[in-house]
C-alpha cells in the first residue's frame, strides 16, 4: 500500500467533513475580515436607531416605538453573532494556512464547530425574528399568528443549516413586504427621509436576493455584502437626516 493510499484511508472521512465545513464559508480569501467590518457597520446603524426608538417610547409610550426598538436590537445582535462567528472561523482557517498540516486543520475546525453552529443559528433566528417584528408593526398580528410564524421561523432556520438559501429566501420575503410598506409611506408623505428609508430597505432586500446565489461564485458573496453595506449606510444616513430635518421643521 502506498503512502498516499494509507493517508486517504485514514483521513478520507475527515477530509469530506473538512470540505463540507469549508463550503459553508462563501467569502473569497481576500475578502476575509472585510465582511466582518460591513456587519459591524450594520450593527452600529441598527443599534443607534433602536436606542432612539426606545427613547421615544419612554417619551410617548407608543407600542410601535418599542416594537421597532426590539426589532432593530434583534437584527443588530444577529449581525454581531455573524461577525463573531466569522471572525472565529477566519482566524482558525488562517491558522491552518500557516501550519499547512491537514490533521491540525481538522482539529481546529472541529473545535470551532459548535461555535460555528450556534453562531450562525443565532444569526439566522434573531434576524428572522427581528424582521418579523418589524413586519408586525405594519401588519398587525394576533396571538395565534405570532405563535405560528415563530414556529415557521424556527423550522426555516433549522432547514437552513443544510440549505442556507432557505434563510435568505425567508428574509427576502419579509424584507420585500417591509420595503413595499416604506414605499407606500413615501407615496403618502413624500418626505425625503421616506425616500431614503425605502431605498435603503430596497438595497437590503436586493442583498438578500444576491445571497441566495452565493454558492455559484464567491464574488456574489462580495457583491451581496457590498449591497448590504450600501443599504445599512443608507439607513444610517436616513436616521441622521431624520434628526436634522426634524430640527429644521416648523409648525405644520
Amino acid at each position, binding site marked *: 500500500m502506498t503512502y498516499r493510499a494509507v493517508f486517504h484511508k485514514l483521513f478520507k472521512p475527515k477530509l469530506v467533513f473538512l470540505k463540507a465545513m469549508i463550503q459553508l464559508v462563501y467569502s473569497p480569501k481576500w475578502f476575509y475580515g472585510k465582511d466582518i467590518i460591513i456587519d459591524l457597520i450594520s450593527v452600529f446603524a441598527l443599534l443607534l436607531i433602536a436606542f432612539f426608538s426606545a427613547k421615544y417610547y419612554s417619551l410617548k409610550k*407608543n407600542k410601535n416605538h418599542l416594537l*421597532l426598538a426590539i426589532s432593530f436590537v434583534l437584527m443588530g445582535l444577529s449581525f454581531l453573532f455573524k461577525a463573531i462567528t466569522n471572525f472565529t472561523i477566519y482566524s482558525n482557517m488562517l491558522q491552518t494556512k500557516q501550519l499547512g498540516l491537514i490533521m491540525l486543520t481538522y482539529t481546529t475546525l472541529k473545535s470551532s464547530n459548535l461555535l460555528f453552529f450556534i453562531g450562525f443559528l443565532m444569526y439566522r433566528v434573531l434576524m428572522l425574528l427581528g424582521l418579523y417584528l418589524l413586519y408586525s408593526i405594519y401588519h398587525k398580528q394576533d396571538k395565534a399568528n405570532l405563535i405560528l410564524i415563530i414556529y415557521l421561523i424556527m423550522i426555516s432556520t433549522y432547514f437552513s443549516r443544510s440549505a442556507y438559501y432557505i434563510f435568505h429566501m425567508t428574509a427576502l420575503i419579509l424584507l420585500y413586504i417591509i420595503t413595499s410598506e416604506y414605499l407606500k409611506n413615501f407615496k403618502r408623505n413624500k418626505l425625503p427621509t421616506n425616500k431614503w428609508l425605502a431605498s435603503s430597505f430596497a438595497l437590503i432586500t436586493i442583498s438578500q436576493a444576491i445571497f441566495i446565489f452565493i454558492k455559484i461564485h464567491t464574488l456574489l458573496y462580495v457583491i451581496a455584502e457590498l449591497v448590504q453595506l450600501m443599504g445599512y449606510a443608507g439607513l444610517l444616513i436616513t436616521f441622521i437626516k431624520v434628526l436634522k430635518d426634524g430640527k429644521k421643521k*416648523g409648525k405644520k
Partner: protein
Amino acid sequence: MARKRERSDIVLDMLQSIQDKGGRIKPTHLMYKANLAHQQMKSYLEELVNKNFIRKVKENKYEYIIITDAGSRFVNKLKQMKEFEETFGL
C-alpha cells in the same frame, strides 16, 4: 376626518407657538394658536411649568408665557420624534 391630536402633538403645538412668537406669548394668544379650550390649556400649562419647559412672567400688568432653554430643547426632541414616526410610518 382629521385624526385626534395626541398629547405630544398638543405639547409640541404649544411650545412651537411660543417659539414662533419669539419665545414669549400671552396666554389668550397661546390658547388660540394651539387650538385649546381654556381648561385644557390650564392643565397643560401647569404640567409644562412643573417640567420647567415654560415660565410665567408679569410685565406691565400683562401675563406672558416664556419658553425656557429646556423647553426649546424639548421642542427639538419632539420634532425629531415626529419626523422619526413619519419616516418609519409608526
